[in-house]
């Protein structure tokens, strides 16, 4: 007597797919900070701020006041305005460079992990060569050659992010290509392009995205470090890193000039990490049966 299940149990119907995680207050605080930073960076031009470049030599290193909420820096420029415009720089470089790395590195990684063979050897080899260069020196050399600008900086940092993204994508693709659903797609007669885009990409996106958020945090700090050394964004554009660098001279008189941008950077990087972690945990499709 052959019997077949004719319908799923009501259990399946009654239970909507619920994510078990609770998003704690820390997560929401991080989101809050990120939203704030993004908002002020985007709408900086519309905010009633004093100019970030106007120097007021009489009001150098002025403490907090009504006219200058966070005081002024060593050249009399409004600190708050500089912080806000600095956020812009950090976010632009911090977001765009990893995106470049992700797109190029991700594509290379997926293709080399899927097709293997000589292409893979070529890609992995070139990435190894790129990784072997001491990154700071490479940045110095390139910038000395092409000149300092936000665009150049973003580009070079983006290129430096490519090998790491390539590795993550390749590792994920290697594991996934062995799983039966990829073989099933091949057995169905799907073209390589279809398999890469429809089957592999949605699954590789996940680890790549988690890596991306980590990359943002890292690049913000790297940009900050370069600007601190005077090699990043050229003046008069303010960047948190260059502000910290400038604040160095005033550490005994007005330590806030170094600490304010440092705190801003710290909170932003922390927020990205927290949100990244939580998002990764949330979007992880749970494996296994009931």
């Amino acid at each position, binding site marked *: *007597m*052959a*019997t*077949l*299940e004719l319908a799923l*149990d009501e*259990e399946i119907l009654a239970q909507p797919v619920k994510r*078990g995680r609770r998003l704690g207050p820390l997560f929401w605080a991080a989101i809050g900070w990120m939203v704030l930073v993004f908002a002020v960076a985007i709408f900086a031009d519309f905010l009633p701020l004093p100019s970030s470049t106007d120097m007021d030599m009489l009001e150098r290193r002025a403490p907090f006041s009504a006219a200058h909420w966070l005081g002024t820096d060593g050249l009399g420029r409004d600190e708050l305005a500089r912080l806000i415009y600095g956020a812009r720089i950090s976010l632009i470089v911090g977001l765009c460079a990893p995106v470049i790395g992700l797109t190029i590195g991700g594509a290379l990684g997926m293709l080399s992990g899927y097709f293997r063979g000589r292409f893979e050897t070529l890609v992995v080899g070139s990435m190894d060569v790129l990784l072997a260069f001491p990154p700071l020196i490479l940045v110095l050399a390139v910038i000395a050659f092409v000149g300092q600008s936000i665009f150049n900086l973003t580009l070079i940092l983006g290129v430096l992010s490519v090998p790491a993204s390539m590795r993550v994508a390749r590792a994920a693709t290697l594991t996934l290509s062995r799983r039966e659903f990829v073989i099933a797609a091949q057995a169905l007669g799907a073209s390589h392009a279809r398999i890469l885009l429809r089957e592999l990409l949605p699954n590789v996106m996940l680890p790549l995205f988690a890596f991306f958020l980590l990359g943002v945090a890292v690049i913000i700090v790297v940009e900050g470090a370069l600007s601190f050394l005077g090699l990043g964004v050229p003046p008069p554009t303010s960047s948190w890193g260059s502000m910290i660098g400038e604040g160095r001279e005033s550490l005994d008189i007005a330590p806030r000039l170094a600490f304010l941008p440092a705190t801003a950077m710290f909170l932003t990087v922390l927020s990205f990490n927290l949100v990244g972690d939580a998002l990764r945990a949330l979007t992880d499709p749970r494996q296994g049966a*009931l």
Partner: protein
Amino acid sequence: MTDRVLLSIENVAVDLPTPRGNLRAVDRVDLKVGAGRTLGIVGESGCGKTMLSRAILQLLPKKAKLSGRVMFDGQDLVSLDPEKLRKLRGRSLAVVFQDPMTSLNPVLTIGTQLIETLQEHLELDANSAKKRSVELLAAVGIPAPEQRLTQYPHQLSGGMRQRVAIAIALSCEPKLLIADEPTTALDVTIQAQILDLLAREQRRRHMAMILITHDLGVVAGRTDEVAVMYAGRVVERAPTPALFKKMRMPYTEALLAAIPKIDAAPHTLLPAISGRPPDPTRPIKGCSFSPRCRYAAGQCHTEKPPLAAAESPAHQYACFHPIEIAAGVPA
């Protein structure tokens, strides 16, 4: 022959908190194993047999809550001092798991793993331990045992690894061996060899054994008593011949019927059991098997049938409508 009771599981229940609610993995189980006897525990995935074996060994996950008693050789393992318990495990109480690749440490040589166990429990010096290891490997049928001592688990085949795991388990002359699906991952010819090996060693050492499996064929010829588990409870328990010839619980009958028989003609439709094993986080009111049981009637859906004995005290089952006519293997 009266065997003294070596292991007595009394009213053991295991609860696991999960994001979806409390999971009753094991629901008030009573079992006894006599010295030198083999108990087979049969059930499908999710029935609680693995959790039960962990409960005996007191190796449950941290969040699990255990209630009841596990009396081993006169001592209650649940309330035993952790240090004493550790000494007991490996020495008097041994385990063989399903997947030898994960139960053996992949970065240590076979020799190291064997010798370590011997030195820890029997306090032998290095040389005696080494000699004993070679003897053990030979006893479990591994060719060229001296060479194996320096090999790593991944250099051996699945069957060989399982033999090594058995050698480690037997190394300290345990009184009770728990074999949790020891052959499920192995080929059928190797399976036969491993089961023969276990039976042989058991007879030689007069050791008690619990054989946990989902395969009724495995328990048929190799156990003295069988307990069938479903949804965390023991639903039928009987001496092996009685279970196969005079089964009373419909689940046991259905399980046996669903196995393709080697002597049946091809293309005979199998009497499949409809539905699936229940979700342990959603306990069913009444008998857990009632949604799938073809004999289920009113009382089955509201009350849980108790495990009770009918004719002979050794044969217990939990069913309100046990099978009257003997189903199963014709006498």
